[in-house]
């Protein structure tokens, strides 16, 4: 009831004085309040449970706020579960992936944006079609390939492919490069710039927002990926965060340590939320541009 009241007192005060409170808007506002509450509730419990003691996490009904705040959970996970190592591994792989993706995708996208020949068109269609290629369809031969190269249980299979460009990011950057005015490049050519130099000194500096978006996507993708590191990493000191976290639910524990699982989930979210906060505008635009979820 109070929700409806809040909505009805708010809506008319915003702008439209001509019409009285629009019932559709009041209903929308109420619906949004309810769904937002439902959406945020799991997150709230994620944080709250991460601060509960081992005894309290098993209580039913669950307590909304911890009775005593067990901040030690956050240090315990680093002591007991090598959380620092997991974090470090994921960061190393994430950063290398970002570097690789940026370098290669920007180079390839430039090639596709600047040259519009017949062969180019064909390759571009091929590139687009690889976006639909399911990873599981190619993972076995890739695994065979990397194991022949002795890359199993190293970070190489997780990082090296990024240096050969990824279809989504190439597509996104190509769209962006295509919008750069031709005159800029003409000017560069008159000054005697080679293509590679024009790429570096004209195209790249003008594309900072698009590059930032690609960087964020590449990082998030690498940070959250489970299947690839599960395939390639076997020793626990090389595990990434998702692999280490997944192993927490395994039969090692008779009762899953919910409070620690929630600590892990909260900590895994930190870099992503930080990135989102820093680059919110570009992030949303980038999502719009590419449609990556």
């Amino acid at each position, binding site marked *: 009831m109070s929700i409806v009241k809040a909505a009805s007192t708010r809506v008319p005060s915003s702008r439209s004085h001509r019409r009285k409170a629009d019932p559709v808007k009041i209903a929308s506002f109420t619906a949004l309040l309810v769904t937002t509450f439902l959406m945020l509730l799991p997150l709230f419990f994620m944080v709250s449970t991460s601060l509960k003691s081992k005894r309290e996490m098993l209580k039913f009904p669950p307590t909304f706020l911890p009775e005593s705040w067990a901040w030690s959970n956050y240090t315990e996970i680093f002591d007991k579960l090598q959380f620092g190592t997991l974090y470090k591994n994921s960061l190393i792989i994430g950063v290398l992936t970002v570097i690789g993706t940026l370098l290669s995708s920007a180079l390839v996208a430039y090639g596709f944006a600047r040259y519009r020949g017949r062969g180019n068109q064909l390759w571009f269609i091929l590139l687009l079609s690889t976006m639909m290629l399911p990873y599981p369809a190619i993972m076995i031969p890739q695994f065979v390939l990397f194991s022949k190269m002795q890359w199993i249980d190293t970070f190489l299979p997780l990082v090296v492919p990024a240096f050969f460009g990824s279809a989504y990011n*190439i597509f996104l950057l190509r769209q962006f490069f295509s919008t750069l005015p031709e005159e800029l490049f003409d000017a560069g050519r008159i000054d005697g710039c080679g293509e590679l130099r024009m790429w570096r000194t004209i195209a790249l500096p003008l594309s900072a927002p698009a590059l930032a978006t690609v960087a964020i996507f590449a990082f998030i993708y690498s940070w959250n990926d489970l299947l690839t590191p599960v395939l390639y990493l076997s020793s626990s000191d090389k595990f990434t965060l998702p692999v280490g976290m997944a192993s927490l639910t395994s039969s090692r524990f008779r009762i899953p340590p919910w409070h620690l699982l929630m600590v892990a989930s909260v900590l895994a979210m930190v870099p992503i939320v930080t990135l989102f906060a820093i680059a919110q505008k570009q992030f949303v635009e980038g999502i719009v541009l590419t449609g990556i979820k």
Partner: protein
Amino acid sequence: MYMFISPWLIGFLVFALYPILSSLYYSFTDYDIIHPPRFIGLANYTEMFGSELFWKSVTVTLKYTFISVPVQLLLSLGFALLLNQTLPLRGFFRTAMYFPSMVSGVAMSLLWYWIFNPQIGLFNYMLSWFGIPGPAWLMSPDTALYALIIMSFWTAGAGMILFLAGLQGVPASLIEAAKLDGAGRLRIFVNITLPMISPVLLFQLIMGLIDSFQVFTQAFVMTQGGPNYSTWFYVYNLYTSAFKEYRAGYSSALAWVLLIVVMLFTAIIMKLSNRYVHYEGGGRR
């Protein structure tokens, strides 16, 4: 030009074309990754189509896809429509709805693993407010898949952002004109808004299908395909036969069927959508 696109060309040959082709070859062999592959013709395929687990994985995956993808699309479109009005707290709502999509993969699985716990989890506790006795969710073969479907709705915010962008691209002048002609909200939505955002809808439909055909993390972290194979997703099946049972040949056959099915679905949807999807500047169909 080739100098610039060569990284991708090499990558395409080494990491896509070569694997696809060798996967096709492996699918006709008996192969454990350690010993060289031995040609056995169509045996993998005949075994697959006779395998109970294969059909189980197909059923589970299709059921998940056909419920989760349309409902997610409807939810995210609905949220986007709600948020496309001038409302107080709009920015807050948008961020809050999108927030769950940032908790992806394993962290989300762990969180919902707890939420669905029948004894201490949040879900059954909330149901108890309404006097509904909650089921055992992930522990019962009747409900485990539905639990995962419910969980998938939690990330509808990601699709919402895309729809919002699409809605913002609908020219206000068109809507004003329709209003002057006396069109109601529903008419405007059906005749103007929906055709204008149809490319976004199509894109999300295809990507949603491809994603849900590849569900792995949830099955790996939360259920290990159980209980009683009720969440035995296709890619989980593929992963298990390749990397737990070391049957890379058989698994490659599974991979090729997945590839064909994805291509088929995409082609059919594209074909059907030709008539309905409206592209600005594109020819009228």
